């Protein structure tokens, strides 16, 4: 009987890990559909930024309540996972609390897990309340209908159930130890310390050992299977940030937020135009293929760079960007969060095609228009409030800018007034129709 349980456990564990590895491979494959971008400079500074913002949660606490609750859940998640190590060893070898040889330290560990589990439970319930009862505005924007809303709640229910199972397992285990049940009892006396689950004991009062064992086993199995399921739910959910926040911050932009990249492809064209000796009709040099001119800007995920695609997968849809966006606050369609969600959803759509056909085949759809509307793109003031607000270093502005570049340079589809301003700049060096020769007139005016 015991050996069957061990085999079943090993199968579940391997299946969970294999499936997860498959999804990670797909994730990396999809991100690599983007253009390469070099963000390997200044590793020290990047690491420090990651330590501060991702590990240290420094931007989360700008909103103190949400930040504090998030830190509890974050710490709980990391620390309670030490317990998963023991559960896995016990599961494979059929042992009971294998790490208990640590003695007093083990008791401290279990006590810490219990307290954290309780705090996580409280934190997650408060998160759920903020979302569903106090209905904080950023959780109820246009893009948060349907799956995104359910996804967020699913994750919270999951975490609640996992914490309850963990505490139930401990309570039943403790009661079995008190009853002196075989397999659960150690010569060293009670192993583990149960500052939270001891309060559940009255609920188990009067139950036979065999019933308690059933409760303990069900809780133990449901807990570990739940964790394996959750691990594999990540890829299909907004919750990937628990893994991707770290690389995402590491690869985020280090230069001032106001500095936008200068397109290399344009640089070449401009150099050619400015060079009086350049022959625009020159045939390509011997042995050199005429290069396909590079597409300017982005109309689909393939035109974005890999960091932008990583950004899209990292977004956990918290909506801090959108709530700080001046356009969104004044009722415009633009929501930086939606830009990230659209990018991810389109990338997933492309990924699905590759899963089916082995390669991407044009599906007649693209990020521009089918997901992100021009009206959204033209509402942006490039103020960087979204970039500043993101707790994990996502840059929605860079995607907006790349898509504007496509609209303007590939499609000549700038809004009319902007096209006029650009013509003015081109003709007379100012966005308004004033003569460049009048530029110093102000100095003569009284």
């Amino acid at each position: 009987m015991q050996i069957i349980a061990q085999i079943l456990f090993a199968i579940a564990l391997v299946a969970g890990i294999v499936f997860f590895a498959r999804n990670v491979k797909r994730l990396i494959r999809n991100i690599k559909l983007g253009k390469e971008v070099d963000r390997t400079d200044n590793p020290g500074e990047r690491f420090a930024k990651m330590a501060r913002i991702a590990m240290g949660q420094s931007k989360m606490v700008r909103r103190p309540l949400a930040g504090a609750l998030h830190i509890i859940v974050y710490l709980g998640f990391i620390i309670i996972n030490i317990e998963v190590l023991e559960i896995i060893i016990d599961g494979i070898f059929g042992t009971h609390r294998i790490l208990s040889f640590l003695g007093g330290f083990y008791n401290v560990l279990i006590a810490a897990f219990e307290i954290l589990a309780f705090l996580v439970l409280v934190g997650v319930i408060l998160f759920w309340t903020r979302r569903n009862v106090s209905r904080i505005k950023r959780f109820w924007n246009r893009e948060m209908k349907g799956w995104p809303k359910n996804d967020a709640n699913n994750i919270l229910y999951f975490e609640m159930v996992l914490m309850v199972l963990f505490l139930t397992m401990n309570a039943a285990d403790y009661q079995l130890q008190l009853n002196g049940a075989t397999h659960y009892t150690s010569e060293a006396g009670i192993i583990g310390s149960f500052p939270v689950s001891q309060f559940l004991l009255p609920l188990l009062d009067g139950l036979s050992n065999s019933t308690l064992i059933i409760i303990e086993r069900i809780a133990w199995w449901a807990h570990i299977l739940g964790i394996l399921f959750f691990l594999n739910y990540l890829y299909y959910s907004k919750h990937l940030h628990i893994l991707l926040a770290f690389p995402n911050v590491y690869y985020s932009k280090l230069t001032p937020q106001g500095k936008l990249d200068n397109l290399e492809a344009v640089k070449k064209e401009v150099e050619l135009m400015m060079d009086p000796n350049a022959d625009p009709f020159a045939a390509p040099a011997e042995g050199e293929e005429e290069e396909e001119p590079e597409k300017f800007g982005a109309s689909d995920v393939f035109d974005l760079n890999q960091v932008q695609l990583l950004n899209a997968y990292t977004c956990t849809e918290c909506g801090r960007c959108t709530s700080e966006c001046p356009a969104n606050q004044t009722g415009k369609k633009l929501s930086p969060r939606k830009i990230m969600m659209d990018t991810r959803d389109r990338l997933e759509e492309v990924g699905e095609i590759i899963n089916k056909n082995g390669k991407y085949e044009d599906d007649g759809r693209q990020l521009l228009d089918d997901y992100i509307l021009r009206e959204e793109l033209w509402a942006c003031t490039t103020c960087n409030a979204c970039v500043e607000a993101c707790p994990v270093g996502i840059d929605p502005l860079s995607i907006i800018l790349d898509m504007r570049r496509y609209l303007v340079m590939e499609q000549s589809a700038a809004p009319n007034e902007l096209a006029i301003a650009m013509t003015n700049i081109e003709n007379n060096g100012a966005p308004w129709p004033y003569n460049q020769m009048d530029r110093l007139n102000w100095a003569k005016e009284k």
Partner: protein
Amino acid sequence: MAEALKVPTMAEYMAEGKKPEVLFWVGCAGSFDDRAKKITKAFVKLLHQAGVDFAVLGTEESCTGDPAKRAGNEFLFQMQAATNIEVLNGYEIKKVVTACPHCFNTLKNEYPSLGGNYEVMHHTQFLKALLNEGRLKVEGGKFKGKKITFHDPCYLGRANNEYEAPRDLLRKLEVELVEMRKCKKEGLCCGAGGGQMFKEPEPGNKDVNIERTEQALEVNPEIIAAGCPFCNTMMTDGVKGKDKEDSVAVIDVAELIANAEDL
């Protein structure tokens, strides 16, 4: 105030075989916009008062390309940059000061990789430096005790992390500096950036400058201090939209300093 300001150009300096201490990059708004021209003149007066040896490009100056770049026209931006860099490098410019945060950001951050490397300062940073060097005296005067709130320009604040230079100057004027609910890193945009200045806003239920003006009016200021000609226009329009133009003025930090002493 009757006589015209003395504003030397780089061409004149070149002809005399001299080089100024700093180039004053006036910018399109500062050159052509009636409201912004007043800021330009106030800043020039301060430069004279501090004895700064400066020059402008005059008719050789052209748009930095900022609105074009942010509207997506990278091509036009790089053309503008190439032209400007040629002029600036031709005059061997080392140091640039500008009263426009958009020009400031573009010259400082986006010109270097195109071959234009200069030390670039926003006029509030430059004035603060003059103050620290003892070249410019900034003190109380007529704004002493007045309730003033500073609206952070996105391209000075978030874009380049400069929040204190304008505030330090205001403190020197001994004003009562009050902060809006959203300020510094979290400051709300005036609505002009990214090319919005030159177009009608997309459909929505409010204009961004009205939202920002409401935030400013919440703290009951007598003056909204600005550090950007575009913010100045947007906030001035906002104050008018709220029928408050008789009680609340929108004034650039440079103007406040110049006017404090009736320059």
